[in-house]
């Protein structure tokens, strides 16, 4: 197990990249602590797989250094870095038995056969495929195959980290849940450093202790699931996490009041606004209260999704979503109020602290 330091890593796929938009990965400077479970969350093309492949050594970064436990591994091959990776589509060697699949990484490294046997038996029990040991791997279901890919990483006792590249994409929904909890359990039991790439917020939030949200080649926020939800540091995080995502409304701020068109919204405090750039107010639908007082809205539609209802409305000509519990009714003349606890302010898309000094949260 290892601590992984990403030291000012940048990557461009073309050799002579100069402009920021040429870079698939703009600049990443971050540490994955030893034994942590991290999720890299972001939309397709945000650079998360690029980052993962840089860690595993399948890609060499154009700039920056990568350190495992303080040792520079930037120029080491994938094999020398000693990491395990599970891919989106299960990779198994289908002419081999399940047992041989798991033994493959050890045999390639010249491990004595008695040791191979001991490790493989241990792992095959751990991933719950004992009864399949002597069977050809090709007849397995997708989730069993994915367990083998994982098992091939686990057999090597000295792996520095286990990387997951959207590993549950091809797995049936109910098996996803099972596998995810097994992964969690493995993590708790053995303390592997795990980095898990996904574009599915549920997966990220349930798997990881800390979620790294990426957008357009950079990390926009690192935090616990609660932090990402309560205090998204970038409007993208607000929009990407949560269903529906955060409402973002353009406002102008004067002291402790925000003006949205002709309406005044009381803020919990005065932002240290530099008065520069575009200011927006972000509020999650969960904090928008629908009632008969507040700012008038026009209801567009109501989506009943079972446990609650999502109200889509227009406020001062802008789209807004609110959440109503199952038994709440829409008033005849609907208005909304914003719960001050849920109000975040953004200048140029980055969060500004309210009532504190105006730096990025």
């Amino acid at each position, binding site marked *: 197990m290892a601590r992984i330091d990403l030291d000012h890593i940048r990557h461009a796929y073309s050799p002579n990249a100069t402009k920021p938009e040429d870079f698939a990965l703009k600049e990443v400077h971050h540490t994955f602590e030893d034994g942590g479970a991290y999720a890299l969350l972001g939309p397709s093309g945000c650079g998360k797989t690029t980052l993962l492949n840089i860690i*595993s050594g399948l890609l060499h970064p154009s700039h920056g250094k990568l350190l495992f436990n303080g040792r520079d591994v930037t120029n080491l091959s*994938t094999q020398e870095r000693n990491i395990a990776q599970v891919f*989106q*589509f299960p*990779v198994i060697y289908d002419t081999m038995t399940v047992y041989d699949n798991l033994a493959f990484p050890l045999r390639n490294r010249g491990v004595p056969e008695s040791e191979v046997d001991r490790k493989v038996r241990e792992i095959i029990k751990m991933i719950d495929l004992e009864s399949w040991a002597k069977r050809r791997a090709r007849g397995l279901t997708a989730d069993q195959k994915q367990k083998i890919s994982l098992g091939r990483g686990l057999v090597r006792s000295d792996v520095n980290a286990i990387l997951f590249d959207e590993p549950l994409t091809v797995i049936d929904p109910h098996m996803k849940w099972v596998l995810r909890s097994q992964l969690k359990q493995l993590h708790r039991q053995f303390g592997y450093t795990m980095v898990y790439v996904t574009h599915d917020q549920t997966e990220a939030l349930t798997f990881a202790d800390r979620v790294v949200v990426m957008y357009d080649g950079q990390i926009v926020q690192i935090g616990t699931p609660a932090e990402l939800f309560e205090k998204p540091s970038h409007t993208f995080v607000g929009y990407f996490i949560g269903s529906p995502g955060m409402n973002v409304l353009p406002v102008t701020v004067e002291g402790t009041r925000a003006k949205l068109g002709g309406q005044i919204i009381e803020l919990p405090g005065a932002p240290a606004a530099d008065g520069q750039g575009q200011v927006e107010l972000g509020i999650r639908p969960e904090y928008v209260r629908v009632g008969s007082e507040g700012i008038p809205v026009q209801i567009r539609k109501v989506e009943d999704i079972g446990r609650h209802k999502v109200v889509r409305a227009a406020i001062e000509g802008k789209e807004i979503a609110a959440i109503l519990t199952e038994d709440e009714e829409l008033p005849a003349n609907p208005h909304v109020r914003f719960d001050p606890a849920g109000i975040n302010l953004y200048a140029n898309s980055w969060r500004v602290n309210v009532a504190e000094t105006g730096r990025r949260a």
Partner: protein
Amino acid sequence: MEKTWNNRAWFMVLPVLVLVAFSAVIPLMTVVNYSVQDTFGNNEFFWAGSEWFQEMLTSARFWEAFWRNLAFSGIILAIEIPLGIFIALNMPKSGWGVPVCLVLMALPLLIPWNVVGTIWQVFGRIDIGLLGYGLNAFGLDYNYVNDPIDAWATVVIMDVWHWTSLVVLLCYAGLVSIPDAYYQAAKIDGASRWAVFRYIQLPKMNRVLLIAVLLRFMDSFMIYTEPFVVTGGGPGNSTTFLSIDLVKMAIGQFDLGPAAAMSIIYFLIILLLSWVFYTVMTNYDAE
């Protein structure tokens, strides 16, 4: 679901039946007809029973051609399959080299059989052919007209030149369909180049290789045109393969009965061998 029974629907099958009858069944039956009868011309036929079949199966000439042909198929498979795999493995997977290689590979396949034969017939001639003249200029005594070994070498190399591309293209199709993740996983698992070939590339090429072996076997076992054009089956009978022998018998000697019997035996042998190949290879695959 309730099925509607209407026997007039059988008429719908009629066109296809007629087509198959004229293109396959009737010609084949003509051959069967000849194989059990004898004629002295004048369109008079006498029942001969299994006489021609017995004659064929005990004829040294037939079995010589048979073993000769089997050896030929064996040799070209032993060269073309590994060579095809090797070339496919070394072809570029992306970039401008891909279309260039594909076109180069497809070229020999586009040339008609008799043209291929003519090319090599001229190429190998010792008086005007680049290959034949060149080899002799270097002091090698090469002459496909007189020397059976040289004739064999020429026919084998010609077939390799003509058909290795087919194996290459099939293998290449199998190779490019392997997702990158397999190679990445192999790197992570520390697999050697040989292990990558043995456990990733070869298993993924399995199906196309089966097709390649079958096609090349059937085709080479029925080879006629190229050796006929180059050597005419000689020197002596040294490159007289089954088809050449059959044509000699049917058209050269006009022995319709024995030729018909031979055709049927020949057809059954190819069917049998192909079935054996297929069964063995698919069983191995499914094991």
